């Protein structure tokens, strides 16, 4: 599948934003951080900015962005529609939490209520994002049970890395955030490795013979293409990354997204002076960002679409 930059930015930025929102909400509800208005402003500001940038990037992908509101209507059947609704609903508790944290509660219990509602709303939104892809039977690499869980765990992990940086930058103890990012990163690594194993070993069940129904006469090989230049289907669905190239990029994303940030998280557990903590947490955030962009690029580039059987023959 063609790795469109708008969709890569959408899923990674909004994922990290929802992850950070979830951890800040948990921290506020459990009083794990002081009610420092500046921390709340910057933290929730960054989270909501990432979410909003991601959602705006996703509308850039549309042919008719001015009609985007129509996408909220078909929640009964469409995961994309559900994702849109969940994303908008999440702004309400997140807004209540943020305003309460920064300006003080307008109504008693505003912070706790906003925080506890933000968590499930954000989780549901990221789950819906994953299900947009996981619900497509035409793409073997996406029609996998681990796709949506990986989206959720990577959102929590990248959000955790951002939280560690945030706490270090404000001079608060980043250790609890470092522990949870190490745990979620390790879980993400485990699930992603299982996912790659699954797509490498899942049987290719669709053939050019079944696509044309001509298998009874022997193997089916494309002879004359229907058009001289690639059409929309080939441009959108026909993107292919070389196997060797993909292997390298998988290793690179493991290094940047998991190995380095986990190492950084472990370093944050030591009692280092604040400037070191900030430097380590910043490097971890940069590394994780580059890593998750690579991971998401691969998620698209490695996915093969059944319709390409008509153009390439073979199996999918």
């Amino acid at each position, binding site marked *: 599948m063609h790795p469109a930059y708008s969709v890569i930015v959408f899923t990674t930025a909004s994922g990290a934003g929802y992850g950070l929102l979830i951890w800040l909400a948990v921290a506020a509800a459990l009083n794990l951080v002081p009610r420092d208005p500046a921390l709340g402003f910057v933290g929730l500001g960054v989270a909501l900015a990432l979410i909003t940038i991601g959602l705006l990037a996703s509308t850039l992908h549309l*042919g008719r962005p001015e009609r985007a509101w129509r996408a909220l209507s078909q929640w009964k059947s469409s995961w994309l529609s559900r994702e849109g609704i969940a994303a908008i609903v999440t702004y309400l508790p997140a807004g209540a939490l943020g305003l309460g944290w920064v300006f003080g509660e307008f109504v008693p219990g505003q912070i706790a209520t906003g925080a506890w509602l933000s968590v499930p709303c954000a989780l549901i939104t990221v789950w819906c994002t994953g299900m947009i892809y996981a619900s497509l039977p035409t793409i073997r690499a996406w029609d996998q049970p681990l796709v949506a869980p990986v989206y959720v765990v990577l959102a929590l992990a990248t959000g955790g890395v951002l939280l560690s940086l945030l706490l270090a930058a404000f001079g608060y103890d980043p250790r609890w955030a470092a522990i949870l990012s190490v745990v979620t990163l390790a879980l993400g690594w485990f699930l992603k490795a299982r996912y790659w194993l699954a797509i490498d070993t899942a049987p290719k069940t669709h053939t050019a013979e079944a696509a044309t129904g001509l298998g009874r006469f022997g193997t089916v090989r494309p002879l004359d293409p229907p058009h001289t230049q690639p059409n929309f289907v080939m441009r959108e669905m026909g993107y292919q990354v070389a196997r060797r190239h993909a292997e390298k990029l998988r290793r690179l994303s493991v290094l940047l997204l998991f190995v380095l940030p986990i190492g950084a998280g472990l370093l944050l557990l030591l009692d280092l002076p604040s400037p070191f903590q900030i430097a380590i947490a910043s490097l971890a955030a940069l590394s994780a960002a580059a890593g998750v962009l690579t991971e998401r690029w691969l998620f698209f580039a490695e996915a093969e679409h059944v319709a390409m059987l008509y*153009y390439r023959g073979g199996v999918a």
Partner: protein
Amino acid sequence: MTSLPETTSKKLGLVIDLDTCVGCQACATSCKEWNAGGYSAPLTDQDTRGSDPHGTWLNRVHSYEVGDGPDSRTVHFPRSCLHCETPACVTVCPTGASYKRASDGIVLVNPDTCIGCKLCSWACPYGAREYDTDDGVMKKCTLCVDRIYNESFAPEDRVPACVRACPTGARHFGDLGDPGSAVSLLVKEREGFDLLPGMGFKPVNKYLPPRDRRDLTTASAPRAAERTVAGSGSLADRFFAWADKTLAR
């Protein structure tokens, strides 16, 4: 509405005969011609005079080589929307722009509400949907919904443009939900089949397989034109016989 109708009163669709299709592209070009002015208008092309001309077409004709050795054959293969009974292209649509009509089973895109998210094209296993970059909305075969019910047309013209254009009669249009219809009988007689039945989309359109080869080892007597005519032995005859032999070398 993006949810699928439980049943449709009719199952209008095409039956495509892979035995008679000669891959002439008449269906594809007449489809483009009709739909560039009909329901799907505009049906745009890009870089038409440049080095990468491409555009939105609703019907594509492939050619495949099938089988090996003396048994191999070339099969021409037109491909367009199959108006599936349970298509994910409809259910994934977030806006309700993609829908399946309860009355006749035609799968359509409403060009006034489509946001151009392209998700439906990802959900179609048959590559049947083509996004129109300039128009910003998804395009697909409409089964010429603007011809088949058009009372100002002569009855023989109330069929999809591709069916009307096919010079070999390889394309048939009708109600595949009616077991007594001409198309249903044809599918039964010729053992028509579904594409990618394993995907579970239940396509309405059917394809008819190429017929068995004639057995060439027991070729019948040569046809009249090929038989050598015994000449009268005149000079002219001998000259023509000599010329024929020489030229045939």
